[in-house]
């Protein structure tokens, strides 16, 4: 049973339930206590030891059902020919030596199931990763069970003719049924061990996919990427949300202790320890929403909005020809669709960085103080208009940090109408940001180092 449990752990891991060696040991101890007899007890007890969140409990239950269902299900046995003495009748003498042939002809379901389990172990079916491996693995499974023997017997029986033909037909039918069972078996293994890995592979790929790719992002991917962005943001939020007021235990605050001791005639009754305050960043996001950058802007906004636990204040602005504040739009619409609303208002204008910065300077400059991190997302392609570097310089002076995210690779910067090299001088950080992975890393940097002057 130990091997079965180990297989079960592997299936759980494939379904994203973390099972560490220590938990595996706990599970074995659990099984020692509760035994296998009561299926429900067995399941609940294992669930308590192995699944650690409500989410994992659901996944645990589905894996448990699939996995242990397979264990109890035997391939449906062939009805043995009724009223006949020897099921092997009519087959050539080689058949007597083949175990598999005898099992097939006798319709011994339990023995067949056992043989299939054993063969599956030899063929390493449970190592399945991709759906394309299914056909090859079913074939190997059948070979391990002794399919080649059966084929030899079939050929020999056909040569015999007469009674051999009838036997061969029955064997042929049994072989087909067996092949179907093997395919179903492999299918279930795939479901157990590999269905999750396909999705994970896809998510990894999406995290590295270029956001401003030609032709945009597939709507199917779009939903998956939105979910991915939210998860990334949640991960960061969890990491940074609880560090606002860390006590430095052991570091005496001499000044405040002395001050408090005044009331006791200089006796330090109240000991005060130093505390370190970690304040939350406040962010001003300025996004170019011209066609080439809109997709990236949408993900940046989703990301930032999902961070509300760790971000003190978030102000978002969008521009192409002119700049507008989009906080209102983002409050009224879900982030996923807000970008379309913004495009309705200011889309289809000619991008003008200088004008947009002017708008910002006129109306919103007071939003920036020394606690603010300004994140600008744009390709810095300003159609040869005046880039108004002086305004960016003012922003830089007033803010804590200016971070410029450019969806274009660095080699494209300052080619054609891009003025990135001129803007770059006024940014604390200027980075290429064209995939979700890069986006996550940069936001992580903002939260962690909280880039100082």
């Amino acid at each position: 049973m130990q091997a079965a449990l180990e297989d079960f752990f592997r299936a759980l891991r494939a379904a994203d339930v973390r099972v560490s060696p220590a938990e595996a040991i706990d599970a074995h101890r659990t099984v020692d206590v509760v035994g296998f007899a009561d299926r429900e007890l067995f399941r609940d007890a294992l669930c308590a030891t192995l699944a650690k969140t409500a989410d994992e409990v659901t996944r645990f239950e589905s894996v448990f059902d699939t996995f242990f269902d397979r264990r109890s299900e035997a391939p449906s046995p062939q009805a043995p020919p009724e009223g006949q003495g020897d099921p092997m009748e009519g087959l050539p003498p080689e058949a007597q030596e083949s175990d598999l042939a005898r099992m097939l002809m006798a319709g011994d379901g339990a023995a067949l199931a056992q043989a299939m389990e054993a063969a599956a172990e030899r063929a390493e079916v449970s190592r399945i990763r991709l759906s394309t491996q299914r056909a090859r693995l079913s074939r190997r499974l059948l070979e391990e069970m002794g399919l080649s023997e059966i084929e030899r017997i079939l050929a020999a029986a056909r040569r015999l003719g007469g009674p051999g033909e009838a036997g061969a037909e029955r064997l042929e039918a049994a072989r087909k049924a067996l092949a179907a069972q093997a395919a179903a078996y492999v299918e279930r293994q795939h479901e157990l061990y590999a269905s999750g890995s396909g999705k994970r592979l896809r998510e990894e790929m999406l995290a590295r996919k270029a956001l401003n790719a030609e032709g945009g992002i597939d709507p199917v991917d779009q939903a998956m990427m939105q979910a991915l962005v939210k998860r990334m943001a949640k991960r960061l939020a969890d990491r940074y949300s609880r560090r606002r007021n860390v006590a430095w235990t052991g570091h005496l605050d001499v000044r405040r202790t002395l001050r408090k001791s005044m009331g006791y005639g200089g006796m330090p009754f109240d000991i005060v320890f130093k505390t370190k305050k970690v304040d939350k960043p406040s962010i001003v996001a300025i996004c170019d929403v011209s066609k080439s950058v809109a997709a990236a802007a949408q993900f940046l906004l989703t990301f930032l909005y999902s961070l509300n636990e760790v971000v003190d204040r978030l102000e978002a602005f969008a521009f192409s020809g002119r700049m507008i504040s989009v906080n209102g739009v983002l409050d009224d619409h879900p982030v996923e669709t807000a970008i379309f609303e913004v495009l309705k208002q200011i889309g289809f204008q000619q991008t003008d960085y200088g004008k947009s910065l002017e708008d910002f300077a006129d109306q919103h400059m007071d939003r920036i103080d020394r606690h603010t991190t300004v994140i600008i997302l744009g390709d810095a392609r300003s159609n040869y208009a005046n880039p108004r570097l002086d305004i960016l310089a003012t922003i830089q002076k007033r803010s804590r940090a200016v971070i410029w995210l450019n969806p274009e690779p660095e080699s494209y910067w300052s080619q054609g109408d891009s003025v990135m090299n001129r803007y770059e001088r006024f940014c604390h950080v200027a980075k290429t940001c064209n995939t979700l992975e890069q986006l996550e890393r940069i936001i992580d940097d903002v939260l962690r180092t909280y880039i100082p002057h």
Partner: protein
Amino acid sequence: MTSSAEAAFDAAQSPHFASIDALVSGLAEVGYIASRRIATSLYMAVRLQKPILVEGTAGVGKTELALCTAALLGLPLIRMQCYEGLDESKALYEWKYGKQLLYTQILKDRMGVALADAPDMDAAMDRLHGMGDLFFSEPFLEPRPLMKALQEREGCVLLIDEIDKSDEAFEAFLLEVLSAYQVSIPELGVLKAETPPIVFLTSNNVRDLGDALKRRCLHLHIPLPDAALEKKIVASRVPGIEARLTAQLVDFVQSLRGLDLRKSPSISETVDWARALILLNADALEGEVVRDTLNVLLKFEQDIVAVEPQIAELIRQAGA
């Protein structure tokens, strides 16, 4: 290890922990109607000597489970409420600074006398070293909940409430306590529990807990109960309530949970509501009474406003 193994034997040997069914009926006797899953988790926690992490929305009976376990086993309950900024000095122990200072002041003269005949500075220092430890000994130690729990010789139930509200640093500090049932105090050494307490941690999912902590605990998620279980709970918690009223009000609450509310009523609200209805001598749900007592069930103004127009319809469904 031997002593702790023997001691744990006690709780596990209790007749209530002979089987899951015994545990379910034992808990029912002290007023906790447990589903089989809850009982299984508790059973495993005691058998494997592991802390149990209870999650679920507010009011599903997380804290109650710990209270009832303590009542069932006749053990004292030590409760520690977590909050942001909770640290070792509040959770584990603290030196009684004031007492230490007071004693040094009072004993100042005695010390002068004791040190007066020391021939030189070194000898005086040596004597002082001998005395110094006096002030860092048990009488000056103020034990806080965690240490109290470890010091209970007969064992106890330790409830660490709302662990998700504490800081990550505190969570890390708990690891030693939870896995080895011991704590290290720099001045005194390692303090190990003679009888490991039965530990409950509760969480409202304000934040995700660390993997290290989760790994050391058994996990129990208490969902909102189904109608049958909830009826049993109401009947057990509110003695003297009529079966018909119980059925009606539980159905009403269950259908409320299907609505899109900011905070769905959980078990504690159902029980409170049942008590309120008994006090008002209501023997069936009626529009008037429900409207007046809705604030027992729903805790947000928006929710009450949203539900009020539907009351008649909901009562009709509950009656059917």
